[in-house]
């Protein structure tokens, strides 16, 4: 093989490594935008069909805007409800970390659907009680109705 070809291949390889580096960097470009702005833009119909979990539900026109702890160790704690689900439990990853010996790690989950908030039990040991009745499936929570988890009672408020 001639010297010219070898030299060209040499430089070609250096170019190729840098193409890899630059294409990796450009693949990461989207990731450099941190915060809420990279959430904007709704998925197209095709993307929504391929990734059903991407479809954002319309923001809940929930009358309930706040979550208040009315009884238990965290009494008085208030949490503003956004449009994202809320995990209740003792695990560190929970949205509201309950310091309650009778609550499970991942005890229950509050989530918005349509214009209402629903609560579901995540298989807790001691159960979740909505207005005194133990939950067996996800049920809507109306503002002012007490939800009991262990020794903690929470309510949604407008």
């Amino acid at each position, binding site marked *: 093989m001639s010297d010219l070809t070898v030299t060209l291949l040499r430089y070609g390889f250096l170019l190729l490594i840098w193409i890899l580096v630059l294409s990796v960097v450009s693949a990461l470009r989207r990731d450099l935008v941190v915060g*809420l702005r990279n959430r904007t833009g709704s998925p197209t119909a095709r993307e929504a069909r391929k990734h059903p979990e991407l479809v954002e539900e319309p923001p809940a026109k929930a009358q309930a805007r706040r979550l208040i702890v009315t009884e238990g160790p965290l009494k008085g704690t208030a949490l503003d409800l956004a449009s994202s689900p809320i995990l209740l439990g003792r695990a560190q990853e929970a949205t509201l970390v309950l310091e309650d010996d009778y609550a499970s790690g991942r005890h229950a989950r509050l989530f918005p659907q349509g214009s209402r908030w629903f609560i579901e039990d995540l298989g807790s040991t001691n159960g979740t009680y909505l207005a005194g009745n133990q939950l067996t499936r996800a049920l809507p929570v109306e503002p002012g109705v007490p939800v009991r988890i262990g020794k903690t009672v929470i309510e949604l408020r407008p």
Partner: protein
Amino acid sequence: MSEVLTVPKSRRNVEALLLVVALTVAIGANWLVGLDKENPFDSAFWLQGGTLAALALIFHILLRFRAKYADPVILPIVIALNGIGLAMIYRLDLALPADAQPVAPSQFLWTTVAMGASIATLLVIRDHRMLRRFTYISLIVSAVLLMLPLTPLGVEINGARIWINVGVGTFQPGEVAKITLAIFFAGYLSTNRDLILLAGKKLGPLQLPRFRDLAPMVAAWLVSIGVLIFQRDLGSSILFFGLFMAMIYVATSRVSWVLIGLAMIAVGGYAALQLFSHVALRIDSWINAFEPEVFNRNPGGSGQVVQGLFGLANGGLVGTGLGQGRPDLVTYANSDMIITALGEELGLIGLFAIVLLYILLISRGFRAALGTRDGFGKLLACGLSFTIALQCFVVIGGVTRLIPLTGLTTPFMSAGGSSLLANWIIVALLLLISETARRPAVKGPVRETFSEGKQNRNTPATDPTREVTA
């Protein structure tokens, strides 16, 4: 411990595209190396390229099913680095005398084993949080792994007793120990973080830890010193202690811990300098590298480092071209000094691209740590990426005479199966953590109903240590 929102897109197609480029780099490097041979396209070349591509494809398809939202750039970067390393080891084999044992076939075999282990890790560990259950078991496993070379199984090579004989070859248990130690530190620190943070006296701007909270730090220090004394391996001892210091700093963000750690390193380093001749020789051959008597001294001379520097100088900006230089003149060119071998043949431009690939890989590890929500995952991703970062710094700093040369492996590149295996398992763990970091939160009910009999169906994995007392 901050939280950053991520884009909920799977981006596996981006990964496929980048994998094609990465495989072109890996196979292209191998082809350029063999260009001077009469028959560059022999069966070994096709076998190697084909196997690498096939394994990358299997890995990619597995990610599509198992970890759809995993980071798309980690796998292509690692494939490229591993491929460049394989090509350079093969190139150094070609320069060997005819009767010498070639290194490339065993390194290639180890690559397939390591990728297989990585795939198996992805299959077995579906969620990195389950590793938290093994916090104290990993401590015991680390201790056993670090002790193994001191048992009759151990073999001593070049003065360091860090290998064990496993029949078919030698294995370096310390490489796997760095993963188990990272799991232990992550589990321990994520559980006891608040205690360590809040207790203790304040001294000016520094919050000093309580004495009993210092115990794990002292233990980590003793392990590092033990490795240094009994196995005479400076590199691993720096790696283990650096890992612990980085993780405790990430967990507590207290400068006082770093200052205490640095003081302990200074004490340990001074003692080592006084007690062990090989540490003193290392320092001497670092400072006075170009003195003729230091250059020619054997053992403990600076010949290896200086030869490497000559190689880098010979390469210059664009390098001599793969297969055109003389990196084989440096001793251990395919393990400790592979960076100078690459610097000679690819030049400063090529070496910078390789260093950038490492930086991108490490930054993706830290990005996964920022994105994931659980403290254990954050600490584990930080610790694992930091080991790769520290290894790169110690090796590249050592061969370019920024710091004294210590025997650590260049991740994914150096000849050595245990290092390759450990680093590929680290890749699998980082991919899993990045998957939990990037996966969008579940909307709507997790499950529809649950009756008495099927109570445990779809139950999310709960942490057994936080179970209910009632």
